[in-house]
């Protein structure tokens, strides 16, 4: 189906994104997969190209145009270019971290951080999960004790995307350990602050060129001028931003499905068995027909959610529905597409095998499928 979401200007932006990825990411992707990290200069170039924090105010180098469709175009093209893991640093920075700075930073913080976030000299990450807590954020133990004009931060975080490369990390901490949700605050911890250390680049089954790390905080003195938003409102702010984070993951999921489908369609037309292309077998046709239908359904659903986000009406329940459904679809699509590739699909030199591994995290991070269903269940009064 023709998508009605985009205007001609987004098409022109898409072409520029495609050119950028073709020049600065695709040629290096294999090398970055092998070394387990991107070359951070690519991120800086993305900033110079205007691909980061598009909606930032013009005075900070952005365009001042608040339109999530630009974020989605970048995300979709990353999937279409088959560089999911090398491009994730940009979508995480744009879709998930930047909104916190955009909405919560005071004037002084904006002056200090915005230009770097836009031009790519500052990469961001957000740290919520701890070794002993995942979805149950209110139980976190990382603490920030008041010490005059600063907080003294102790604790650790894990599974932090951009954890190795990030220059600014938004860290969820307990400023009041006697409280659960109301005791949480967000602090921006900067590269180079004494006592802030990064653990090893974690070895994952997929997203191999995406750095994911543990972060350790040992008596890190964080100036109170690095408090993002109000003290005690950290959880509230996290909850407010989660729908956009989940929608970003859903956009990735559908675009990744489209890429995998096209890869597989091409393969079944070229691969022969028993004297004919395997796409001629009824099973292949039925499998691909089913996936095609489901991907189109998912696309329509997510396109509507993108519109709702732009309108300011995307609810937590809607975002939860979109996130769980299309990421579960993504698992089915990758699995079925890999199956149609046969033995070659299990070989890492075939992109479908990496896509299969890359996609596995999608039903877990940003809130698991189970948590998404809990949110929806609660909204039903259950």
């Amino acid at each position, binding site marked *: 189906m023709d998508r009605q979401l985009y205007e001609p200007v987004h098409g022109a932006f898409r072409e520029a994104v495609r050119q950028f990825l073709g020049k600065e990411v695709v040629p290096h992707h294999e090398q970055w997969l092998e070394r387990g990290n991107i070359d951070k200069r690519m991120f800086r170039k993305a900033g*110079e190209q*205007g691909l980061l924090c598009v909606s930032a105010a013009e005075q900070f180098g952005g*365009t001042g145009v608040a339109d999530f469709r630009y974020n989605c175009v970048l995300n979709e093209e990353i999937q279409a270019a088959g560089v999911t893991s090398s491009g994730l640093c940009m979508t995480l920075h744009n879709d998930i971290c930047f909104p916190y700075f955009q909405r919560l930073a005071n004037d002084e913080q904006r002056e200090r951080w915005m230009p770097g976030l836009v031009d790519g000299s500052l990469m961001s990450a957000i740290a919520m999960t701890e070794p002993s807590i995942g979805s149950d954020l209110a139980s976190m133990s990382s603490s920030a004790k008041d010490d005059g004009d600063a907080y003294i931060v102790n604790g650790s975080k894990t599974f932090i995307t951009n954890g190795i490369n990030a220059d600014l990390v938004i860290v969820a901490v307990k400023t009041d350990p006697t409280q659960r949700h109301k005791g949480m605050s967000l602090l921006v911890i900067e590269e180079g602050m004494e006592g802030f250390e990064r653990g090893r680049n974690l070895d994952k089954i997929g997203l191999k060129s995406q750095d994911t790390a543990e972060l350790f905080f040992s008596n890190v003195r964080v100036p109170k001028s690095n408090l993002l938003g109000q003290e005690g409102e950290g959880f509230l702010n996290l909850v407010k931003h989660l729908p956009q984070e989940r929608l970003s993951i859903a956009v990735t999921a559908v675009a990744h499905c489209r890429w995998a489908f096209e890869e597989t369609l091409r393969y079944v037309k070229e691969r022969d068995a028993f004297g004919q292309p395997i796409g001629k077998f009824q099973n292949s046709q039925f499998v691909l027909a089913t996936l095609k239908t489901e991907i189109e359904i998912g696309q329509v659903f997510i396109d509507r959610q993108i519109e709702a986000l732009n309108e300011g009406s995307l609810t937590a329940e809607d975002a939860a529905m979109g996130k769980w459904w299309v990421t579960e679809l993504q698992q089915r699509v990758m699995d079925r597409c890999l199956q149609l590739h046969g033995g070659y699909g299990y070989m890492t030199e075939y992109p479908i095998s990496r896509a299969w591994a890359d996609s596995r995290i999608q039903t877990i991070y940003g809130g698991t499928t189970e948590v998404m269903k809990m949110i929806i269940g609660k909204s039903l009064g259950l």
Partner: protein
Amino acid sequence: MKILVCIKQILDPDMPARDFKVNAETKEAERGGANLVTNIFCENALETALQIKEKTSGKVTALSYGTDDTEDSLRKALAMTVDEAALILREGDSNPDAEAVAKVLAAAITKLGEFDLILMGRESGDWGVGQTGGLLAEELGLPSLAFVDSIEANDGTLTMRRQTDSGTETATVTGPALALITNNEFNVPRIPKTRDVMMSYRKPLEKFSLADIGLSAEDVSGSSFYEVTDLSIPTKDVQCEFVEGDSIDEKIGVLASKIQPVVAANS
């Protein structure tokens, strides 16, 4: 300096070969699901013009003769930071030949004003005729140079370097003049920045009919100085044979014996 760049939109040359089809009846390529893109040498010309403007100031105008779809290529030119753009809308379905295009471009340029320098791509990536530039120079009565890969502008003088089979030649000309641009490492087209992409939709893009520039459909039809009599995709006949032998030397000998008759037959 006022520079005008003529650009052409063509079928994406990077489309998969299996998707490329021609219509034997109309003797034209079929678009199918392929993208339309700006001809790469035209983008080299745009880049050349923009670099001159950035060094000397002035204005760059992009001009194209095409359908409404061609607006996308002109918007891209604007996003590359061209100042203004004009589109002459084609009438009829068939692609015009080089002579007709030169006539249209000449009439359009006359309408748009005076320019110090007119740039075009050396040829287009679809038909590759490479005649339009020379014919346009003739129409406008301008000196022209082909295969130019760099231009320096100093005090009203244009120094152009052109590629030849044996190296390069340098020519100096005072404008107005026309140059057909080829690619080099210095005129790789820039990727439009996000802000410029957005701005490209706020810049002026004028559309003209043939009548607006003083021409009629008859003026640009039936002027062919050549005729396409047949259009087809070459069929590939690939034969693969593994050379047998117990050693490398033996295999080389067998290979040579197979090649020699072919070489002899073609020499």
